[in-house]
Every structure is written in C-alpha cells, then in structure tokens.
C-alpha cells in the first residue's frame, strides 16, 4: 500500500533563513556594484568607486594612520562618555526624586537639551582650550542631556503601586530607592546610556572637525582639502563602522542588563 504521507521538505525552504541571507547578501552586492558603477562615471567626482575606497581603507590601516586616528577618537569618546554617564545618571536621579531639583535644575536641563551643541564651540574654545580637554567637554555636552533626561523620566515613571508595595514591607527610604525605584527605572536609564553612545561618537568626531582637528576628524579634513576622495570616503565609512560596532555593543549590554525582565 502506497504511503499517503508527503515526502520530507525539499532542500529549499522559501520561508527559511537561506532566502533571507541570500537576499541580504545580494542586496549588499547590488549596493556595492551600484556604488562602483556610479563612482566610475566621469562626472562623479565626490563619489569614488568602492574598490578605490577599499584600497584607501587598506592603505590607511597598513600605514597605521587609521589605527592611530581610531584610537584617538575612541579615547576622546570613552572619556567624555564616562563623565557624561556619571553626571547624567547622578543628576537624573536627583531630578527624578527631588521636587527642588525638578523646579530648579530641570528647566536648565531642558534648555541645554534643546540647544545645538555646535553653537557653544566658539565659547568652549576660549574656556576649555581646543585640544583634548575641549574635545572631551564637547562629547560630555553632546550626550549628557540624553542620559540625564532618560534617567529622570525613568524615575518619575515608576508606578506608585510598586512604591506602595515597598512601603508595605516597611522598606527604608534607602532600600526603597535601591530595591524598587532604581530597578524599575533601569530600562529608561539603559536606553539613555545606549543613545548616549551614538551621540558620544558624533560629539567626538564633530569636536575633532570643529575644534583643533585631530584623529578621525583630521583624516577627514586633510583628505577633503586635497581632494583625496577615496580616503575621505574610507574615513566616513570607518566612522560609520565604529558607530555600528559601538551601538551593537551598547545594545548587547542593555539586553544583558535587562535580561531579568524576560527570565
């Protein structure tokens, strides 16, 4: 008697990951091919072919220029980010729990949040210098408000019922904040810290372009003024890759830190 069951699934599953990966890879190849094609057109001056950009990237790393630039930008970014995180979370907590801070500090924070940081550059130049210190302060200004606003919002958004439960267990004020308020506000705090990473990268590169040119900013400016378009684009791609990697890392840290919610 012939079997009525269908044969096992064919080798190709149209809804499986293979199709997805095929499309992803094809898309990237199509994009690179289009870039190469457009870059080779005679009237394309500011878009160099991707093959030349890749060569410039290789040369940049082989000569050590890109490695040094990347390290310098990372240093500016990390130091500025850590300072911003400490200030942002600390002051954000204070605003979240204190009526006094909400009435005095918070309006200033909102004003600072809405102000384009680039406007401060001429003033920063005078008071902080144009070298590493000035660049770090620019990074701090670039990301501190994001962290601060998210932290204070997180604290304010803790459901009152949670606090009531804590109180019903006779929790001290310290324990109430440590064991109830802070854990409940963690998603907001980590969101602020994650967004802050992206802003810190932008702040670091902007500072390197607009204050004393250094690191990746110096690479970009030098390539632009000498029409070295492949190196300019390689520098831009490198900055984008740096952003991509650091944002992925920040997301990973965020997921790990908030894993208790899905456990």
């Amino acid at each position, binding site marked *: 008697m012939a079997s009525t069951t269908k044969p096992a699934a064919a080798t190709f599953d149209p809804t499986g990951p293979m199709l*997805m990966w095929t*499309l992803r890879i094809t*898309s990237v190849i199509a994009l690179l091919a289009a870039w190469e094609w457009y870059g080779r057109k005679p009237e394309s001056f500011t878009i160099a072919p991707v093959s030349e950009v890749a060569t410039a990237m290789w040369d940049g790393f082989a000569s050590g220029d890109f490695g040094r630039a990347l390290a310098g930008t990372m240093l500016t970014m990390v130091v500025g980010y850590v300072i911003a995180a400490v200030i942002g979370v600390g002051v954000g907590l204070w605003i979240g729990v204190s009526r006094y801070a909400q009435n005095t500090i918070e309006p200033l924070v909102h004003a600072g949040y809405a102000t384009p940081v680039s406007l401060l550059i001429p003033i920063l*130049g005078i008071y902080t210098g*144009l070298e590493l210190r000035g660049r770090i302060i620019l990074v701090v200004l670039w990301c501190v408000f994001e962290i601060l606003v998210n932290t204070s919002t997180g604290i304010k958004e803790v459901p009152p019922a949670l606090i009531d439960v804590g109180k019903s267990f006779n929790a001290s004020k310290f324990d109430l904040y440590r064991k109830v308020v802070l854990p409940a506000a963690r998603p907001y705090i980590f969101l602020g810290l994650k967004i802050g990473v992206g802003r810190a990268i932008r702040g670091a590169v902007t500072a390197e372009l607009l204050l*004393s040119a250094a690191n990746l900013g*110096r690479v970009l400016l030098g390539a632009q003024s000498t*029409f070295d378009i492949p190196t300019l684009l390689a520098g831009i791609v490198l900055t984008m890759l740096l952003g991509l990697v650091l944002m992925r890392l920040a997301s990973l840290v965020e997921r790990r830190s908030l894993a208790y919610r899905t456990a």
Partner: protein
Amino acid sequence: MARQTAFRAAVPAVALVLVAAACGGGDDDASTSGGDGATSIRVANTSPTQPGFVPAKFGVITYGENFGLDMTIDDFTTFDSHAVATQTVLSGRADVVAGSLVSNLLLNEQGQDFKLFCPYIAQDDFVIAGANGIDSVEDLFDPNTRVALDSPGGAGDVILNAMLQALGQDQTAADIPGIQILESSGLRTTAFASGDVDATVIHDYQYYEAAEQATDPVIIASLFEEVPDFVKEGHAAPAAWLEENAELAANYCAAVLMGMRELSADYDAFVGAVEEFADVEEMPDDETLRALHTSAVDYGFWPGEDGGLSEESITFMAEVGVKSGLLEEVPAYEDVVAVDILERALELVEEQS
C-alpha cells in the same frame, strides 16, 4: 514571516541602488545656461563671499547688462567646499567654480579638465602673526612653538607655504613640528588671543583684534607685501564648456574686471558692495574696510587692469603647490589657463571704457 523580513531587509538596498541609478541618469534638463545665445552663467562659489571678494558679484550684477548678460544674485550659489562646488559643475547644476587657484591646479592634475579663465581675488590680507616671543619664520620650526594652521591644501596652508618660499625658507608648513590644525581663521584668532598658540596665519584685521589680548604680538610677515605674485582664487570651468561658451565666458569675465576697476577707484562703491554682496553677519567698521580697500588698491587684490592670471604668477603658485606636496609637477600654462578668453574679456572691457 521570515520571507517578509527578508524582503524588508532587501528594500533599503534596492532603494539605494535605484537612487544611485537616478543620480547617475544625467541632468540635462537642469542646465538652463550656456550654449548658443545664452546670457547667464551659474557660478558655484567654494566659500562665503568675504568683503574682499565682492568685486566679482558687484561687477556681474552692475555691469553684466553692458556685456549682454542677464544675471541675478540667484545665479551665484555658495558652498563650503571646493569638492562639492566642483561636483555641482560636473553634475551640470552649475557652470563655473570660483575658488582656490591651487585647488583648481590640483583638480586639473587629478584629471578634471578645468581651466582658469578669469580672476576672482588675487591677493589677501593674511599675515603670519606671532606672540609669546615668536617673531621670525625660523621660530615657527622650533619644536616648542605652537603654530595654528588649517589642513594641508587649505587657504592658510597655501598662503604660509607661499610666504615661506618667498622669504627663502626651504622648509614648508608640513615641517613645522608644533602644528595644530584649526580650520577656521576665527578659531585660530581665538587661540592666538588666548595664548593657546604662539603663531598663526590670520587676516590682518583679526590680528589687530587679537593683539589686544595676546602677549608681545607681532606681524612676522604679510602675504601682500612678501608675495606679489600670489593668486588666491580664480574662476574656472571645464575646458569643453569654455570651448562651447567662449564668448559668454569672456562677457562674464569682462563684467568681473569692470567691477574690480570700479571698486578699486571708488571706496564708497566698495562699501556699498560689501553691504549688498558680502556674506558677513556684521558689517565691518569703516576703519577695517578702509584698511582693506587701501591694501586691495596698493597691492593688486583685484587685478581688473590685466586679469592677473599671468604665466609668471600661475607658475609661482604651481611651484608653491609642488613644494607643499599638493601637486606633483608644474603644469603647462596653456593647459590650466584659457588665455584667449581672458584676453577677449580685457578687449571687451577696453571697448566699454
């Protein structure tokens, strides 16, 4: 669901490919000037119009009609980069680039067949300023001297190299050990005034502003006194476009030259032109404008009489570019300057005068 996700992943890339294809599809319909019977040129400026740069716009708007031009201020577009202005011309959205002469030579060396056909501004009021005991060009090369300059190939860098060459120095800006890259002359002035740097290249009016705060300030050298052959900026266009539009280009240049002559002769007209055409947030005071005008007249900032793009000056500028490491070799004069168009413009001006 996975298929949906895959398609979603593909959409942005496909969209980008389509956008790139659209961008590469030419821009024939965007060009409304040039060609037979054309009366206007679209000019891409590579930087905002500073007070010293106003004769070109002033000449075209004021005298353009005398040379058959029908141009308005909207025919001038200001960019902040020579590369972007050049791309605009290559994409057919502008006809002419007004910008750094050395950058134009560099473009030419990189295979872009651009030719200079008209002056824009020959000289500038840049000076090498020193403070904190730095008072000679030799001091710039001391490892302890902090020198602020813009990127290699930038205006300040080219100007410093030209001055070093004119002063008989074998070294260039690239050899200065204590260099700090500050792109804007405003930022360099701030750094100089606050003592963050010991020497820099800035406009002379910026020097006098900073000198009030700086310690032992001194002008070490000034461009217009030390480098009479310097040509800062010029008008350039693709050679093919110039060939097709030779008379139009000559008419445009004639109007520019007329503007230069007029403003050289009339200080009040210069003040009016700065008010109307300069991209400045605040009008400079009379003393500053008068000093600029005097320097411009005395040192030939606006070469309205002879066009300024002589073989001697172009060769000098190319040599500065070579010595700075920007250019590989000095190009043949006729390969980078459309002499016939400049000469025709001078003829047209003489006919009007």
